[in-house]
């Protein structure tokens, strides 16, 4: 696999750095790829803008940061405003539809309500990062779902494994529905009581 760059952006507290770590471990440890993971570092990480980047490649990785992301995940409006213009042409852009409403007309964006799915379906907004990871992997194939699940389970606190598995599955299911519908999910689409298994 040629070099692929993934940027995960949002606000401090949304678990984006953990998500970056999990994605890097899924690709590096469980899939045997070369990886480099960097993140925003500084006072702004607490409550302000937060960002994690993962570079995945079959070859040795030189520059460890993203230059032109191939995959961009924006978990709030500010992240969209800051990073939408940076991506490589043809990049996959995924946004949290529950927190992002203003998108450029010409932007090709997959909008899924990660935070609402986490809140309504799983009862915890803090799982939005794992829901988003499941969706990102299902949509892009950047890592396989079984390997992503292994990486998630190795990182999350004891006792929350089942909840996190459900979160991953919910993210995958959201992508399936999105693809079946052929359009961005309508409001309220997260109000399901059943997940198809990934």
């Amino acid at each position: 696999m040629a070099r692929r760059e993934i940027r995960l952006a949002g606000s401090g507290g949304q678990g984006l750095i953990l998500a970056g770590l999990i994605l890097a471990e899924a690709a590096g440890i469980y899939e045997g790829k070369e990886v480099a993971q960097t993140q925003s570092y500084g006072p702004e990480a607490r409550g302000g803008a937060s960002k994690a980047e993962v570079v995945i490649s079959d070859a040795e990785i030189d520059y460890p940061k993203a230059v032109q992301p191939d995959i961009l995940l924006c978990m709030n409006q500010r992240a969209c405003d800051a990073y939408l213009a940076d991506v490589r042409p043809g990049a996959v852009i995924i946004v949290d539809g529950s927190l992002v409403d203003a998108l450029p007309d010409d932007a090709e964006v997959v909008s899924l309500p990660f935070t609402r799915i986490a809140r309504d379906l799983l009862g915890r907004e803090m799982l939005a990062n794992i829901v988003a990871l499941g969706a990102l992997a299902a949509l892009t194939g950047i890592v396989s779902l079984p390997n992503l699940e292994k990486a998630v389970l190795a990182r999350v606190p004891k006792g929350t494994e089942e909840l996190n598995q459900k979160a991953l599955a919910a993210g995958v299911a959201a992508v399936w529905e999105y693809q079946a519908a052929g359009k961005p999910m309508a409001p309220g689409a997260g109000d399901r009581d059943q997940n198809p298994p990934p």
Partner: protein
Amino acid sequence: MPETTPPSPRPLLLQGNEAMVEGALYAGCRFFAGYPITPATEISEVMSLKLPALGGTFIQMEDEIASLGAIIGASLAGVKSMTATSGPGFSLMQENLGFAVMAEVPCVVVNVMRAGPSTGLPTHVSQGDVQQARWGTHGDHPIIALSVSTTWECFALTVKAFNLSETYRTPVIILSDEVVAHTREKIVLPRPGELQVLERPRPGAPPEWFIPYEDTPRGVPPLPAFGEGYRYHVTGLVHDVRGFPTERPDEIAPLLNRLFRKISQHFHDIQMVEEYLTDDAELLVIAYGSVARSARRAVADARAQGLKAGLLKLITLWPFPRRLVEPHLGRVRAVLVPELNRGQMSREVKRVNQGMTKVETLNRIDGKLITPGEILARLQALSGK
């Protein structure tokens, strides 16, 4: 061999700072004294978790002066020792660094560089302490400083730093930076025995015949641990072969010359560089630390555009690896030295260059890493295409 370093059966994802701790433990470091400071804190943090479990000692000191003092004492007691800090703490360490040079105490000092001067930009990357590592402590003295640019190097060069420090009885500085320190990369920790681990020379003579600072062919006197029965005096004053202060010119010059000679006659062991596509290079980038990673990418991109570019990555910054740099300067059309300061290493390149080729600089001091694109643009300009 340290039997206590656990082999990792599968790869780990580690930050540079974490890998440095693993490297130190692999090399047999069992004493760490330090004062946490951004962006080096993870080194103290992980040391405080891992050292006690290995029977080692971690002490959080009151400041960085005391931190280096503590590791000098621990080293003289026979324990491989390390401290880690960033610019402000490194400034405080300069006095004791000179003492370690003069008293020939093996120890490893990590400086994870952040932007200065003073408290500067704590969370931002810099390479501003390169000349400080060379000349921060007073007096004419030799120093060894290594630069790291990947997680693997944070491990392997920390092992090497301990080896050099023990072999030559000298403090060794590792210059890291915020980007290298916090980038997570995959690493498979070597098993014991896979990497060489060296110990300081020990006296062969019985205590009553022991002359502590007597010259040897390698220029490195043996170092017994305090408490082993060997009596010797440790001082920062210029001393005679028995360790007591002297003002006799016939004793002063031999000591100071030996301190230089023990380093200079082992340049082949101490000086390290890494070459990338240099064989037919017409444009040479000389870089180190995190910037070397941007440079490697820029060189690859330049090659893809048909430019004959190459990278000479400096691993040993001090003593400046002149014998490894000079041959390239006589061969290439131009050299570019990108660095996160106003030109601290390019000064050395220019000093060695003596007009052989064109040496240009690319400097950033705004707390941001130089990008591959910035280097590539300069290579394109230098090529005239």
